[in-house]
């Protein structure tokens, strides 16, 4: 069978596993297709060069009919694509190339990360219009999608564009020691949040740009915020968090987070093969194709996730 290849940033992330689930579901539903969906990636999300090497390998493989890439280093993948000059259609998935390299791929399928961050900010601002001291929790220091979310989040809170740190704009101030980079480690995330909270008792909220502290360490997260459940309910303390993976929705239900803004990785994985087949067939395809966002608050948890 010819392969529709999906290369993700790293296998160590359950988010990408959801993409894989979508990919496998597509395979199950299309057993007779001349194509199959093939999922791969480097072992670790931080292995950027490794991802580029896998992209090369896949482009060099005779079976490859089309490829969808989730670039962890957009510039690097762009460079790789330039030198490889692939004959098969290329698209991006989940994360996109930079604006000026857009010509290297046929389309982008995935979340609008900027919008996602903006929505997190919107929820926080709505809950606490006066602002206060905040801290953003980020993942890997080099991850572009997270940086874009953070930008959207800041833009939303400040009402201005392109600030790299909030210093009172729109009433919001980032405290010293923030942003925190957790390197996609849930426990580390919660530990850092605990420290920040201890150091700044007057903190007004957290903006969590990647869901690690919630789905990777749900229990310590609960332990940390259960005593503050009241304040969260009264919007005295606000937490906006990314993703709806694992235990996150349950946490929202318990009222320990103001709002969740989640992506739809399963949908990405499920849709990607069809998009790629369209590209192979030469059919016109929209650019970009945004998968939607699932937005959950305490009240909407039962209905917010698109099935």
């Amino acid at each position, binding site marked *: 069978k010819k392969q529709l290849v999906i290369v993700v940033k790293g*296998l160590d992330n359950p988010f990408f*596993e959801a993409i894989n689930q979508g990919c496998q579901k597509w395979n199950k539903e299309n057993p007779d297709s001349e194509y199959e969906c093939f999922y791969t990636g480097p072992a670790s999300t931080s292995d950027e060069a490794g991802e580029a090497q896998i992209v090369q390998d896949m482009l060099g493989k005779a079976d490859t009919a089309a490829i969808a890439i989730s670039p962890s280093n957009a510039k690097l993948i762009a460079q790789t694509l330039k030198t490889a000059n692939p004959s098969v259609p290329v698209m991006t998935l989940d994360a996109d190339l930079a604006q000026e390299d857009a010509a290297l791929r046929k389309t982008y399928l995935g979340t609008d990360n900027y919008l996602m961050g903006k929505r997190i900010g919107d929820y926080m601002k709505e809950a606490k219009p006066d602002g206060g001291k905040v801290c953003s929790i980020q993942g890997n220091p080099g991850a572009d999608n997270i940086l874009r979310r953070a930008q959207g989040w800041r833009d939303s809170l400040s009402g201005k564009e392109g600030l790299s740190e909030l210093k009172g704009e729109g009433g919001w101030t980032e405290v010293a020691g923030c942003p925190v980079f957790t390197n996609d480690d849930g*426990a580390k995330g919660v530990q850092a949040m605990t420290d920040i909270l201890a150091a700044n008792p007057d903190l007004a909220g957290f903006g969590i740009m990647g869901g690690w502290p919630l789905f990777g360490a749900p229990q310590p997260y609960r332990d940390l915020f259960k005593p503050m459940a009241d304040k969260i309910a009264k919007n005295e303390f606000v937490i906006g968090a990314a993703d709806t993976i694992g235990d996150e929705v349950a946490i929202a239900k318990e009222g320990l987070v103001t709002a969740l803004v989640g992506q739809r990785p399963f949908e990405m994985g499920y849709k990607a093969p069809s998009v790629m087949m369209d590209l192979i067939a030469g059919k016109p395809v929209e650019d970009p194709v945004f998968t939607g966002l699932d937005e959950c608050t305490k009240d909407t948890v039962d209905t917010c996730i698109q099935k």
Partner: protein
Amino acid sequence: MAVTLDQTIAQKQRNWIASVVGGQTFWVLIAVILACLFLSAATDSFATAKNLYNITRNVTFVAIIALGMTLVIITGGIDLSVGSVLCLCSMVLAVVMHAGYSIEVGIAASIGTALIIGAFNGLLIAYLDFPPFVVTLGMLSIARSLAMVASNNTVVFQFGPDHDTLLALGGGAWFLGIANPVLYMIILALLTGFVLRWTRFGRYVFAIGGNEHAATLTGVPVRRIKVAVYMISALSAGIAGIVQTGWLGAVTTNIGAGMELQVIAAAVIGGANLAGGVGTALGALVGAALIEVIRNSLGLLGINAFWQGTFIGGAIVLAVLFDRIRNFRQSE
């Protein structure tokens, strides 16, 4: 003359105070205490019950593994696979319990996995004379890959019927308000200390690290001890994995990534010598504590995130500096 000989034989070159003060462990302990005093004075938030509760709990996972690692390091070996073994053991526990088995079955499966991996490492190292670095580096890769296979790379956060028991095990505080993981750590440290000082096994571990050839010649079962030591190291990673699972309430396939270097750093900072023959259980704890106190303080002091790595790295180097300066003076 006879008196002199008897007196000489009864003497000891260094009394126990001298040998305590002479060790690196002591100086690192001093550093930890000084750091704590400084933080208590400099911030309101350090010396609170809650912060201390958190710090002591955070320290445990690295510390527990560092105990096993210390044994390995004393024999002159190294175990790079502990982070991945922690991940695999957590995952086995999670998957088994998620499938509806009881917590006992889950823990047994998890411990069993750890022992098998440790035995594999140990057999290759002891009987086929593989370099420990290579074997355990290979296992680092293998164990994490198996964790992905076992879980299908998903987040497991529901642990079947015994869900709450597991969470209480890792997240509770059954005794005097001390976090459970801390209790386990203390028990394991006492056990390790006891084994090292008071058992024949511990004596052999030191002998192998001091002079493996001599140990073999005098009839120490060097190979069996080495296998046991790698099994203990994997076991400690497994135990840490189980406890951590109970604490976190969820398992992903990236937990414990990069932990091996942290654990080795803790053991080495605490005085274990990678050349073999030297190390203590207390040192493992103290080394882990120093790293955690630094990490905690960076948050409390509001240090810029970009600079935090510099502080942590600097502190690791500084921790050994005390000991070096002392040695340096003495030898000159």
